[in-house]
């Protein structure tokens, strides 16, 4: 059974099509990274998945059940949508207690556990209005992660967290995923998503323009071999003679896109050394998710 199924989701706000005919299928245990520019439709999609807004067209199924028809499995879903907010007059513990009640939980130990897991022990009696943005975000995550979940939907969960906090949350999400929780996560910190996600979906102008698994991403990201020698023109001639297509980039370095050369850079190095053109530097450059994302949306824009 798929955890999330969304078919032909479209959301129109008057003349604006915020989400345009998106379909998603997410398997159990997957960490789905949802990437897009501001206003691309990420949050609207997430709100449709959570039943907060109704699609103009299309259907959302969670755990195989239509969420628009007496859906009763919300306790299996944890979520954090955009910037987290809490009741300012209540302490961290009291804010969590509110959701402990609303999630119909009975084990009070869950509150202590989640406070400890999210590093909020020192702040448990602090009122939410006095928390830093990072700790507010931790509180928001605590509300979502209090109990065992089958699905966790997070919209920008790393927002406001310091680097150590980002690493903690990343490890926590990985641990949750290992225990079987499916995670749907949007973040603008693409390097974090790349480290976490098992599948990436790129949304642009309301359309899902690319969807690929992390191993497919590995194949699709652009790789090139970058070389610098004392005489790049001579080195280019040598490479041409060896049948390796190459060129000079704007930093006056040799760029090679040939798969064989990228997979065996030591062979190229040997040729250059033997020809008296010992490289000053030679490395394989691999495009990161950020660069891949930008390249993908630019090609979509034409």
């Amino acid at each position, binding site marked *: 059974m798929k955890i999330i199924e969304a078919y032909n989701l479209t959301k129109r706000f008057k003349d604006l099509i915020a989400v345009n005919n998106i379909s998603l299928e997410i398997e159990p245990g997957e960490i789905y990274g949802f990437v897009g520019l501001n206003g691309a439709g990420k949050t609207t999609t997430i709100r449709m998945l959570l039943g*907060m*807004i109704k699609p103009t067209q299309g259907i959302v199924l969670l755990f195989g059940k239509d969420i628009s028809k007496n859906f009763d499995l919300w306790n299996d879903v944890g979520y954090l949508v955009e910037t987290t907010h*809490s009741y300012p007059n209540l302490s961290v513990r009291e804010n969590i207690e509110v959701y402990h009640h609303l999630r*119909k939980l009975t084990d009070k130990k869950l509150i202590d556990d989640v406070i400890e897991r999210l590093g909020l022990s020192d702040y448990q009696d602090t009122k939410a209005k006095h928390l830093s943005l990072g700790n507010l975000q931790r509180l928001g995550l605590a509300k979502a992660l209090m109990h065992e979940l089958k699905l966790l939907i997070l919209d920008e969960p790393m927002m406001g967290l310091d680097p150590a906090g980002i690493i903690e949350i990343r490890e926590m999400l990985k641990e949750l995923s290992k225990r079987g929780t499916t995670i749907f996560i949007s973040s603008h910190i693409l390097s974090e998503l790349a480290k976490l996600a098992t599948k990436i979906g790129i949304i642009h102008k309301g359309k899902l323009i690319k969807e690929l698994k992390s191993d497919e991403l590995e194949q699709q990201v652009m790789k090139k071999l970058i070389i610098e020698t004392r005489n790049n023109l001579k080195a280019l001639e040598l490479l041409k003679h060896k049948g390796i297509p190459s060129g000079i980039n704007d930093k006056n370095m040799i760029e090679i896109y040939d798969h064989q050369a990228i997979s065996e850079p030591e062979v190229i190095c040997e040729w250059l050394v033997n020809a008296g053109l010992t490289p000053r530097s030679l490395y394989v450059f691999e495009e990161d998710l950020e660069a891949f994302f930008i390249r993908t949306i630019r090609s979509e824009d034409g």
Partner: protein
Amino acid sequence: MNELKRAFITELLKLKHLSIVWITFVAFAMIPIMGGVMMFLIQNPELVPKSSILSIKISMLSTPVNWGSYLSLYLTQGAGVAGIIAFGFVASYLFGREYSDHTYRDLLSLPISRTKILNAKFIIYIIWCLSLAISDLILGFIVGGILNLPGWEYNVIFEIIKIYFITVLLTMALGTWISFFALWAKGYLAPLGFLIVILMLAQFIPYIGWGHYFPWSIPGIYCGAAGEELKNRLKEWSYLLLFFTSMLGYILTISWWKYTDQT
């Protein structure tokens, strides 16, 4: 029932450490206190500086100084008019705070239904308003006792208390429209604006003789604030009109919360 109970407990919890709760009690307590001050000054007109506006007003009043007029004129009529403001404020706070605090999204996709969460808010609203009314009544008895008001007659007092609570219930019933405006406008400013407009209309419409058609004028007319003649015009259908207006407000509140896009 268990779900409603849980939602109710969370609503109670959310009121913890809130000074606004005590502020409403202090503000509502002004009705019996100011009524008591007026009674005291009518009893002792020599204490009021001559030719002051208050002195002129007191000389114009033909209010007898006794329990009946104190509880009826100041407490009950005060509840009928000031109750619209106080109860409206309570409703706008309870229902608008989720938007003002930006916590509403956390209430939308939960195992407890949205309707039960709103019903829990309505229960808190009823308890809060009734507590205000009861506290005012108790304070009224204390103030009347301190002033040593004459004319304590059980049957008269009982009748006034009955009118007082019916006035409170009629006023409370109209809070459903404030809750709707709080959700519709996503905060508590718009419902307070609605409240001001409705209060002006509730004062004006009885003067042109249509008060018994206007639900927000009915509590004030019922408690006698607009005089016996207008009170006599109230018929069963006036109360039915108020009841259906209240129910429509409730249905709109629930429907809006359940079915509108929560962006």
